[in-house]
């Protein structure tokens, strides 16, 4: 129950952050990705503001080695670069550049923009399709 309460609190903060920062507006995202047009650098400051909190926060937790509930933290991320990472990120970038939605802002728009409902259904279908690919050789 406590775990769920923390998750709800994190979700509320995340959703507020997306809405306050304007990242729920797909035009703002597309204009960030368009330095040759009417460039809007806001997204870079959203990332910067997030990392200014999370980089020291994660560093502190890494040193601590445990969560606040004294559970083990996940193992450090792998550093292996593979084709799945590169091709997947490239396809994600193309989709992001078409509509201006990545998963967070699309969900944040679910009660606000009708198009977000269509987008999220397509996103879940696309994710299902990716599961049909053979599993990675060794991880």
């Amino acid at each position, binding site marked *: 129950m406590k775990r769920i309460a923390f998750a709800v609190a994190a979700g509320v903060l995340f959703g507020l952050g997306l809405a306050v*920062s304007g990242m729920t507006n797909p035009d703002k995202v597309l204009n960030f990705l368009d330095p040759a047009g009417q460039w809007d650098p806001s997204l870079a400051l959203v990332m910067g*503001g997030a990392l200014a909190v999370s980089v020291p926060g994660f560093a502190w937790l890494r040193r601590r080695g445990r969560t606040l509930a004294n559970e083990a933290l996940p193992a450090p991320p792998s550093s292996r670069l593979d084709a799945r990472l590169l091709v997947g990120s490239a396809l994600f970038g193309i989709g992001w550049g078409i509509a201006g939605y990545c998963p967070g802002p699309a969900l944040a728009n679910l009660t606000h923009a009708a198009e977000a409902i269509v987008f999220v259904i397509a996103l879940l*279908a696309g994710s299902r399709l990716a599961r049909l690919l053979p599993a990675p050789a060794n991880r």
Partner: protein
Amino acid sequence: MPTAFTPVSALIGGALIGLAATLLFATLGRIAGISGIVTAAVEQESERGWRIGFLLGLILAAGLWLAASGVAPRTGFPLPWLIAAGLLVGFGTRLGSGCTSGHGICGLSRLSRRSLVAVLVFMGFGALTVYVLRHVIGGIA
């Protein structure tokens, strides 16, 4: 459509997102990667409770803020392009194990080389796509 550069609200909103990611990692030891959380919430029964809680918190908090702020949603974006974009984002984030939040915020905070590469690749391809659609073909958005 042109948008104004909004540095103050961008930094404040960004800090809230960073706080959210840190909170989830500190309390549950989980990565706030939205693509992974939403897919797992739909497809897996185990650990569903916290994922649903996180998503409902996100959807309702952002929805209330947007409703109160009175901004108009985008309308009239072509449906075939919207569906193609959703399919690509869902397929690509599953294959590449993360999106803007998982790789861009949590991964970079964990100093992951994979995440740094992922961010550079999706930002590069995003910008390339916008360039082609707006300045070469010219038209959809």
